[in-house]
C-alpha cells in the first residue's frame, strides 16, 4: 500500500522559498503550523511543485501562501476562490489549493465560498480560522466568538457566530472537515483527504492569532493558546483540563464532517457538456 513517494521523509524546507524566510507571521501564530501541515500532505501525496497551484487571498492567512515554493497566486481580498475557479477550469491538470482566512473567506468572500461549494469544482479550500481580521489589526470577523473583544467590538462581540463547516456543507461542498493546529499529524491527514477528494473540499483549520486576538482577550501565551485548542474539540474526545481559559466557548466537532462521493465534479461535467455540444455540430 505504501508507495515510493511516501518513503522519503518529509522535509518542510524542500517546499519553502527559503530566501523569504523567516516568514512575516508574529511569534506563535498558528498559521505557520497550518502551513507545515499543508506541505506535509502535499509531500505525502507526491504532488510535484510544478503541478501545484496555491491561490491565496489577503490577510495573514493568505500571505502564508507566498512562502511555498510552487506556483503561487496572491489574489485580491475575498476572491481567491474566484481566481482558483478560473485557473482550475483552464488547467484541470493542476492541483489547485486555496489558502484563505475567516475574514477573507466568510466576510468579503462569503458569496464566492457558497458558489464554489455549490459548483463542486475540484479545489481544496483551506480556511485558517483565527476568529479575527489579524492583518488589519484585529477587527471582528464572522467567526469571532461571543463576548470576545476586538477593535470593533470594544464591549465584547454580540453578533452570532458562523459555523463555516455547516455553511460549506449546506452550500454543497462534498468534503468538509475541521481540525485544530495542535493535532498537526491529524490535520495533515485531513488536508490529504481533502486534496485527494474529487470535488470541492472545505477544510477549516482552528488557528491562533496570538499577538492581537490572544493578547486582547487575555488568552495567555502562545503555548497556552495552543494547549487550550483542545477545548475547541469534541468534548468526548478531550477535556480542557490543562488550563481553565477556554479558547472557544462552544466546543466544535472536528474530523471529516461530510464526504459525498456521489455528486459529479463540476470541471468534468462542464468539459463533457462542451464535448457533447461539439459532436452535435
Amino acid at each position, binding site marked *: *500500500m*505504501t508507495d515510493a513517494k*511516501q*518513503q522519503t*521523509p*518529509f*522535509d*518542510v*524546507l524542500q517546499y*519553502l522559498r527559503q530566501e523569504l*524566510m*523567516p*516568514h512575516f*507571521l*508574529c*511569534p*506563535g*501564530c*498558528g*498559521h*505557520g*503550523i497550518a*502551513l*507545515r501541515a499543508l506541505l506535509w*500532505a502535499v509531500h*505525502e*501525496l507526491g504532488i510535484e511543485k510544478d503541478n501545484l497551484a496555491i491561490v491565496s487571498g489577503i490577510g495573514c492567512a493568505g500571505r502564508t501562501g507566498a512562502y511555498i515554493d510552487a506556483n503561487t497566486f496572491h489574489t485580491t481580498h475575498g476572491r481567491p476562490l474566484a481566481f482558483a475557479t478560473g485557473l482550475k477550469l483552464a488547467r484541470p491538470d493542476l492541483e489547485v489549493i486555496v489558502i484563505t482566512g475567516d475574514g477573507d473567506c466568510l466576510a468579503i468572500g462569503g458569496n464566492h465560498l457558497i458558489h464554489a461549494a455549490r459548483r463542486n469544482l475540484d479545489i481544496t479550500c483551506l480556511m485558517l480560522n483565527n476568529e479575527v481580521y489579524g492583518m488589519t489589526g484585529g477587527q471582528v470577523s464572522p467567526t469571532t466568538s461571543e463576548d470576545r473583544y476586538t477593535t470593533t467590538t470594544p464591549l465584547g462581540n454580540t453578533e452570532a457566530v458562523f459555523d463555516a463547516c455547516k455553511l460549506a456543507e449546506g452550500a454543497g461542498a462534498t468534503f468538509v472537515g475541521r481540525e485544530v*493546529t*495542535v*493535532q*498537526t*499529524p*491529524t490535520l*495533515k*491527514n*485531513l488536508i*490529504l*483527504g481533502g486534496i*485527494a*477528494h474529487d470535488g470541492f473540499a472545505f477544510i477549516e483549520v482552528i488557528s491562533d492569532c*496570538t499577538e492581537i486576538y490572544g493578547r486582547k482577550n487575555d488568552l495567555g*501565551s*502562545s*503555548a*497556552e493558546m*495552543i*494547549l487550550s485548542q*483542545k477545548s475547541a474539540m*469534541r468534548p*468526548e*474526545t*478531550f*477535556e480542557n483540563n490543562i488550563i481553565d481559559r477556554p479558547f472557544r466557548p462552544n466546543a466544535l466537532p472536528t474530523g*471529516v464532517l461530510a*464526504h459525498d462521493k456521489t455528486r459529479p465534479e463540476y470541471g468534468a461535467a462542464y468539459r463533457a457538456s462542451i464535448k457533447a455540444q461539439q459532436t452535435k455540430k
Partner: protein
Amino acid sequence: MIIVGVGGQGVIMVSKVLATICQMQGHQVKQSEVHGMAKRGGGVFSHVRFGEKVWSPTIPKGGADVLLALEWAEAMRWINHLRPGKGIFISDTQHIMPPFACRSRQRNADAAYTRETPHEILEQIQDGYAMDATTMARDLGNERAANTMLLGVLSTALDFPAEDWRDVISRFVPPKTVDINIKAFDHGREWAELVHENPDHAAEQLRRPEIAPALLSEAGEHDGDFVQLDINVDWCKSCDICVKMCPERCLKLDDQLKAVLHKPELCTGCRICEWLCPDLAITVHRDPANVKASA
C-alpha cells in the same frame, strides 16, 4: 470475547449488548471493563465471557474466541489475546490518532501509529474481518453506527437469532438513532455474508486509498537511538511553544531567547516540537543519512 476501541466509540455499549444477548440465550455472563483514559482519547477495553458456568471475568492472552475492535491500533494492541488459529478477528480499519498525552514516551518507541496493514493481518488470520465500518456507516448516515455494523459482522459467527440482536441493540443505543443502528447492523450482516461467499469482497473495500495509508509514514525513518535536532535560530521567534509542549522538557530559551536543546539526553525524537513550531525552525533527524545530506 474482547471488545476494544478508544474513548467515545461505544465499547461499553457494545459489550452491554453482547452481555445481554448472551443472557437472553440462557448463558451465564461475566463482564469487566477498563475505561480510565477514555476521556483523553485513550484505549477502552471490555471482556465478556459467557457459557454454562463462568468463573473468572477476565480473558488471558491467547484465550479470546472473538476480538471485536472499533479502531485499528487497538486491534493491533489486543491481537495476541486471540486464541491462536481459532479466534475470530473483527476490526474497523479506521485510524484514530492518539493525542500526545497517550503516546509512549520511551526513546525509540514508535512515536506514531501501528504499521500493520489490514492485508498483512488478514493473511495471518483465518477468520478475520477488516472492514472500513466508519466510512460505511458514514455513508449510511451516521459514522457512530460503525460499532453496530461490526456487531452485524459478529452476529453471523454466533448462533443467536437476528431478531434478538435487533431487539437488544434498540434497547441500548440512543433512542433517536435506533433506525440507523439497525440499518448498520443489517448492513454488517450482509457484508459478512458477502465475504463468506467471496473473500475478494473484503479486499475490494480495503483498497480504498485516501486517508489511511499516509498515516503510516509518520513513523517513517529511524535508525536505532539516533536523534538530532536542528534549530534554525534565524527563524526562531522565541514563542516558547516548543519549550512548553515538549513532553520531556528538554528545550529551553537561551539568553538570546532562542530555543536550544539543553538536555539532549532526554530527547526522544518524538517530533512534537517540529510539528508545532510555527516558524518551521526545528527539524528532528532520526536518520544520520539525512543529517549529512542537509549539512
